[in-house]
């Protein structure tokens, strides 16, 4: 009996491999890469609970438990970095999330095909600009005396005459968020434009017969059509609440705005890599990952219960 089973299993295994070995060969490079650069570092997370030992690597140092987490939670920078990260993410979502939706609805309403194409092509361009270039453009355009954009805002009375926008703490978040909108609004609108273009034209005809004007059509036909897309993208955005893009914040940091621009990821870089406090850096990084993961799980759970769609 047992023998029979073993034989069966062996036969099945053999069959599986003759059928699928080529697929495994094709998967091998990708899996190997992910193993080395994603799973090995995950194993290295234990560094956050150990004293770093140069010769022994990940596992050799003495176990110190939560020492480094305590050190982070008790440091003055814990509150600052956590708050800064949340504030930047919060405004990025509040301002940055609706912007592409509004843009897509505007583009969708343009009647002149040529102009529509021109607008679409133009709004995609900033997405291709690198963060380094974007930040230097910000520095040029908002430079204290000669910056064109800064002067324009002053002319409109939105900013007081003698402010140094780049050095002002209260200007950092708006600058970060609005330039982010400038860069990615067009790109992010593509998906909504595509969703809008697939709305059933019979709905528009029905609307016309009912005597609805274009505003009403937009609110009652176009908007409901993209609500499912909006929900899914919102969940995905919420799960990334603590993943503030490192590059842009790091490059926009200067000595004047550090109080509002030091976020968790830049802090991890400066203590973990630059000053080689490996265990402490690993602990702060792990805290960030865990908070994100919890957020993702919670939003996913809420959305599954309320809308039936979720990621996992």
């Amino acid at each position, binding site marked *: 009996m047992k023998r029979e089973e073993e034989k069966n299993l062996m036969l099945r295994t053999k069959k599986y491999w003759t059928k*699928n070995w*080529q*697929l*495994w060969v*094709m*998967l091998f*490079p*990708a899996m190997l890469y*992910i193993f080395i*650069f994603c*799973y090995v570092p*995950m194993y*290295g*997370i234990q*560094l956050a609970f150990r004293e770093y030992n140069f010769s022994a*690597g990940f596992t050799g140092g003495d176990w110190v438990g939560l020492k480094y987490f305590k050190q982070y939670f008790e440091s003055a920078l814990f509150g600052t970095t956590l708050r800064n990260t949340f504030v930047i993410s919060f405004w990025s979502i509040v301002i940055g999330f609706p912007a592409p939706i509004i843009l897509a609805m*505007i583009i969708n*309403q343009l*009647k002149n095909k040529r*102009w529509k194409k021109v*607008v679409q092509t133009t*709004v*995609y361009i900033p997405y*291709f*600009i*690198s*963060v*380094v*270039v974007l*930040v*230097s*453009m910000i*520095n*040029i*355009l908002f430079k204290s005396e000669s910056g*064109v954009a800064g*002067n324009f805002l002053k002319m409109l009375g939105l900013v007081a005459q003698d402010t140094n926008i780049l050095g002002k703490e209260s200007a950092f978040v708006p600058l970060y968020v609005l330039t982010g909108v400038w860069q990615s609004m*067009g790109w992010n609108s593509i*998906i909504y*434009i*595509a969703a809008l273009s697939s709305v059933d*034209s019979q709905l*528009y005809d029905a609307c*016309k017969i009912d005597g609805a*004007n*274009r505003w009403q059509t937009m609110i009652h036909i176009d908007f409901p059509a993209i609500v499912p*897309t909006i929900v*899914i*993208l919102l969940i995905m955005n919420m*799960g990334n609440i603590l993943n503030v893009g490192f590059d842009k914040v790091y*490059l926009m940091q200067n000595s004047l705005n550090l109080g509002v621009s030091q976020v968790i990821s830049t802090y*991890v*870089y400066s203590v*973990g*890599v630059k000053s080689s406090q*490996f265990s402490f850096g*690993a602990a702060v*990084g792990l805290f*960030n*990952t865990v908070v994100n993961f919890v957020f993702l799980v919670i939003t996913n759970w809420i959305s599954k219960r309320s809308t039936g769609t979720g990621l996992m």
Partner: protein
Amino acid sequence: MAAKFNNTSSGEVKRSFNLADRIFGAAVLILSIIIFLIILYPLWFVIIASISNSNLVNLGLVTFWPKDIRFYGFQQILEDERIWRGYANTILYVVAGTALNMAVTMPAAYALSRRNFSTRNKIMFYFVFTMFFSGGLVPTYMTVSSLGLISTKWILIIFVAINTYNLIIARTFIENSIPEELYEAAVLDGCSHFSYFFKVVIPLSKAVISVLVLYYAVYHWNDFFTALVYNSNQKNSPLQIVLREILLLNQAFQSGVGSVQGGYAQGAVDQVKYAVIIVSTVPILCLYPFVQKYFEKGVMIGAVKG
């Protein structure tokens, strides 16, 4: 397509001249013009500033058209060896990196698209899990360090060999756009996975391949983080790191070149900055018209299973 056509034709037939609609149309048009200008003006400003007299730019006199045209900034760049080295490095990283990306992503995407591959969901989880959980910067840095890859050209090529999101896009495309009947027919003809992949899947995946090449190439071109963290050898610096030195750290000239005194030097620095922005951004924008038609498709495929 048919739906779109119907929509416009019926709209033309029953053209309404209702006042509310006219106001609405005008408002939409004005808004679109404002957005268009907000997006375009900063780009336009950099272009005109790069070829204008930078003293005039600094006085705020250059706003819509270039004034006192000169190409000083571009001339300086031609002589700056760092920029050329950065360029050469970046081109290497873009070409080699993107080639590696595609060579790793496409076969894996094919394998994961096979419906009768019984282990595929487990393997998919192996990939997707890394999208939501990671070791973090420090353990990753130490892994790279223990492999001896810090400050080598290799790490800048292989660091992101595969992006899980792009893998999902490719897999979804292969799964949905290439009919299963083709595979069945090929198997009857004695076709293996390898030959089916090369002879059928690759030629039929041009749309998704162009989208992914664009995504990966733009990523490598603009990648700043990898070089910042994992490379400290100036000889390997990609363009973005050089740009940061010039644009943000104000090391506009290599020692010796920019030793002119006073305001002139500052003006020259600014003009070099504008020119650098243009020289570094134009190449990637040149790729754009060729792949633009695939954008929507790519984004839509990705959206199906985000």
